[in-house]
């Protein structure tokens, strides 16, 4: 069975989607990721979609599910590198990707995740949600 590799990078998990996901593969990814979050105690999940040319409502639902499930286990999900055409299409389709954070690339996604973890341990002054862009 084909699998999408999940990399552990410190406190975070990184998934790079490079093929068009057919449904079973996407559902497997959802299950694998949630298990990995649990096993590694990850604080954040980065999903790199920069080589994904299509996100339909099925894929959107999978991304939303991952975010919600991770959130319950105290990990934030950032979708990074979405292509312009995909973003415009998602908006036109009416898919809000609720609960999913977004960033331009993996690096900025990492920064975002760090800033999500730190404020709880740092002073409240730094805690403005300007950096945290929810896609709603």
């Amino acid at each position: 069975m084909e699998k999408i590799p999940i990399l552990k990078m410190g406190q975070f998990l990184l998934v790079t989607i490079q093929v068009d996901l057919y449904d079973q593969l996407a559902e497997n990814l959802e299950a694998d990721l949630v298990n990995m979050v649990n096993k590694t105690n990850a604080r954040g999940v980065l999903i790199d979609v920069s080589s994904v040319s299509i996100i339909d409502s099925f894929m959107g639902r999978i991304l939303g599910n991952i975010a919600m499930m991770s959130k319950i286990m105290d990990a934030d999900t950032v979708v990074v590198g979405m292509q312009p055409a995909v973003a415009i299409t998602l908006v036109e389709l009416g898919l809000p990707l609720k609960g999913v954070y977004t960033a331009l690339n993996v690096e900025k996604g990492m920064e975002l995740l760090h800033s999500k973890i730190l404020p709880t341990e740092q002073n409240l002054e730094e805690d403005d949600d300007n950096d945290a862009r929810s896609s709603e």
Partner: protein
Amino acid sequence: MKNEAIKIFQKKKSNILEKWMTLQLQDEGLREDLISNEDLRIQSEELLSSFISTLSDANIEHVSIDDFEAVKDILSSISISRAKQGYSPRETGNFVLTLKEALLNTLSEEMKDPEALYKQSMFINKIMDNFAINTFETFIKGREDVIYRQTDEITQISTPVIRVWDGILALPIIGTLDSARTQVVMESLLQEIVETGSNIAILDISGVPAVDSLVAQHLIKTVAATRLMGAECIISGIRPEIAQTVVHLGIDLSQIITKSTLASALKTAFTILKLEVNKKQIVKHH
């Protein structure tokens, strides 16, 4: 072939060509700067040969335009290229109308029986008029192509994305924002965000005459798409009358960062990026 006119045309082909050429060259409006006499002769001869060889007993009486596809193709390509070269409609039309004159002229010289001459002339008239209409249609189409190309260019030109700061883009929108325009705006803005890795985009609508619910929808969509990419989008240039209409129409812009001027949008962008702009040597914090 029983038709007399066709026989005459076949026999007198070179004669007709000469007549036609003379008529064309007589025209004062002939654009010798755009086409040489040789080229004109080649075009004319090609068209005439194709026309005469297509004529048959059947199609001369009941103009079946499908038969003349080849002739029309030649005519179309000539009139399209003329439209693009800047010929006037009159010059283009004259090409086919002088052929009609040459054909009718030849018929009247060769046919003795007035009744037969009248009948054949009517046939030729009908066919040639059809060609003339076709010529104008394609001529206008050629011109339209030029207009469409220019429209595309204007749309591209009218959406400049400006890098106002490292990580901050601005896009001033001037003119009405319809859905086609929105698509171009979104595409160029998002593309530029990817290329520059910018975190913030400012959409300035000072130059948009009116914001109705449709335009607001387009703005909201653009902001949503920008956020999906992982960047923030600020709308600036909200004039008082725009604020009024937005509220009266019951449009909810509360999820969007809106500013009245580009300057204040830029200030907000600086705050988001944790940047500070200070006057030199003046230490003044609040």
